[in-house]
């Protein structure tokens, strides 16, 4: 793991403003922020570990547990909400057998909610990896998992 972190750090200058981009790249590499990697980042930037943890825990993007193979993001935006997003989330949660923020035991899916995908005109929507599924209904919600 240390090699992979080193490779990322070698692309950055040791300055405070690099912290968030470094965290983003480390998460892109590991799918989450391993504790050891964050310690390493703190040493690299010469800042207290608390600083790195503080920033990482502030932003919604960062995760401290490994993510499943597929990322399912149910949109909680206003347009989705008024067009029935809570029911969609319920259906998906029931189908996967996990709650928001959890990963299926087989590590296949991680279910997250997102403040807004920006696809409001086609609400309600769910994003699976990079694909947005629009105009869902409780009956069609499961179809987002069709491969």
């Amino acid at each position, binding site marked *: 793991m240390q090699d992979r972190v080193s490779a990322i750090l070698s692309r950055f200058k040791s300055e405070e403003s690099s912290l968030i981009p470094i965290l983003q790249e480390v998460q892109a590499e590991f799918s989450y922020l391993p504790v050891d990697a964050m310690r390493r980042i703190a040493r690299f930037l010469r800042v207290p570990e608390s600083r790195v943890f503080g920033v990482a825990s502030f*932003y919604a993007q960062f995760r401290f547990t490994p993510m499943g193979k597929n990322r399912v993001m149910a949109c909680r935006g206003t347009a989705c909400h008024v067009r029935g997003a809570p029911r969609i989330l319920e259906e998906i949660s029931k189908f996967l057998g996990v709650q928001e923020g959890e990963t299926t035991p087989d590590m296949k899916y991680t279910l997250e909610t997102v403040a807004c995908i920006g696809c409001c005109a086609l*609400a309600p929507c769910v994003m699976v990896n990079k694909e947005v599924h629009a105009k869902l209904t409780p009956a069609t919600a499961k179809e987002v998992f069709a491969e």
Partner: protein
Amino acid sequence: MSFEAARQQATKEWKELQSGAVPLVYIGTATCGRSAGALRLLDAVRAELDKRKAAAQIVEVGCLGMCYAEPLVTVRKPNGTAVCYGNVTKDRAAEFVENCIVGDKPPADLVLGSIGEKSVPGVPDLFSIPALRPQVRRILRNCGSIDATNMNHYLAHGGYTGFARALQAGREKVIAELRDSGLRGRGGAGFPTWRKWQFCIDAKGDRKYIICNADEGDPGAFMNRSLLEGDPHVVLEGLLIAGFTIGASEGYIYCRAEYPLALERLRTAFGQMEKYGLLGDNILDSGFSFHVKIKEGAGAFVCGEETALIASIEGKRGMPRPRPPFPAVSGLWGKPTVINNVETLASVALILQNGAAWYAQAGTEKSRGTKTFALAGKVKCTGLIEVPFGIKLRDVVYGIGGGILNDKEFKAVQTGGPSGGCLPAAWLESPVDYESLAAAGSIVGSGGMVVMDEDNCMVDVARYFLDFTQKESCGECVPCRLGTKQMLDILKDITAGKGRPGDIELLLELAEGIKRGSLCGLGQTAPNPVLTTVKYFRSEYEAHIHEKKCPARVCKPLIHYRILTDKCKGCGLCLKNCPATAITGENKKIHVVDQSKCVKCGVCLEKCPRKFSAVECVPGAALQ
């Protein structure tokens, strides 16, 4: 190649494209098009053309704004006619290629309208259809009609002439032009743009920065995403003009990581600008040097606030600090900094291209120009719209939006996201501008406009927004951190049927405290959704609290489902699908809901065949 030569070359290329000998097919592949299956359609159309050995040129474009009819395709024939089609799904690709690209028998259910001067018999002019007629498309003029990844398309439409003009005229003339145009910041606060820039010019500093705020955090808003995906160069031209005018040699674009396509479009655009000498050192031999960096936002709504955004770029937690000093005096790394919204910068480019007088033709005395809105929620025609300030809300909801979905009753329109409010039918006659919406208790905000109908519970909507702001509060100010939590707890109680007399008064009291005691806009405006819903929909709160009923039938503890004995045919569909085994009844005999087991998921109502309509949702908990 000089800029002028590049422009001429681009214009020539564009004309050649338009007068080609084969049909030209524009397919909208921005995020909304893609969600509706535009990429699958693209593949299917290509395959079908290959199969028929038919020639056509395909151009991927951004979003025309009529998201309700995605996927959108425009076909331009060699004879100069162009027709825009909607709802062109992959399954109809073969038929579409045959009748619309190769042949000339467009199916009526796909036709939206014709584009350009040449009319097509039996096809209305696209810009005269109800969803488009009230619109004035300036900022969005290129969205959906040019290839966002081809800078020549932008150049052929007057691109970067505004910047070239700014270089020649000098910063004082640019400021004067902006002042005359009356442009106000499009991020939400509506502060005059020229004044913000002037503050930064007047501020002392060896370095200055310009930041483009593309961290569109309001749930229910996607104007900036669409613009960046459909016409990124118009924003970048505005950024260049801003950098030149305030004397900044470095710019940042702070864009949400949730917008991967917008980020991709920006990165492509940077490369093209460098190639044309519009980015880097000594741009167009003017002595002006400018470099841009992208910062991906890591997901914090509060970072839409200027000082929090700066903290985030500096690598810190995105927490606001007191102002003054304003960023224009002491911003990024303590240097004078201007932060402008995506749409503000695009407007700057247009003003410099076309002049202040042209710009001020649209809009009202105090709110000049046009504004883009993300029209969503319970209207028939959802999408990205651009209207002149001063248009009536009714013309937006019923004209452009086409009225309420399934012809239900209009209840409210929510503007301004979590900082805005919900306006009832009485305000439909009100004009859309900064002052009028503020008088109603809401704001223009960045441009989210979510329409709600009789099936939406306003207490639930208020709870939804408070849930959002409470989670997004950065935690710095006690009134915001704890106050929003208290308000949310009360709203949760009310929607759970545990509301108590006096709750409404308590909410109003807390709202006042949070408004006064918070440092930044997030806290100061967080109570707005509650204040407006209490003001305009108080009876709904009272029904929840006193009668323990949710009139809109949304809040689960305050509703129940029942099976109508005179309509139930005993088909068993509800019984089979009930996840709580709360329904009993024999085949062909009337079924019954056991209220003690019912989890109120509503599956029975969804499953009951429409011809029977035997399941009913009733306000108020069931009598046990």
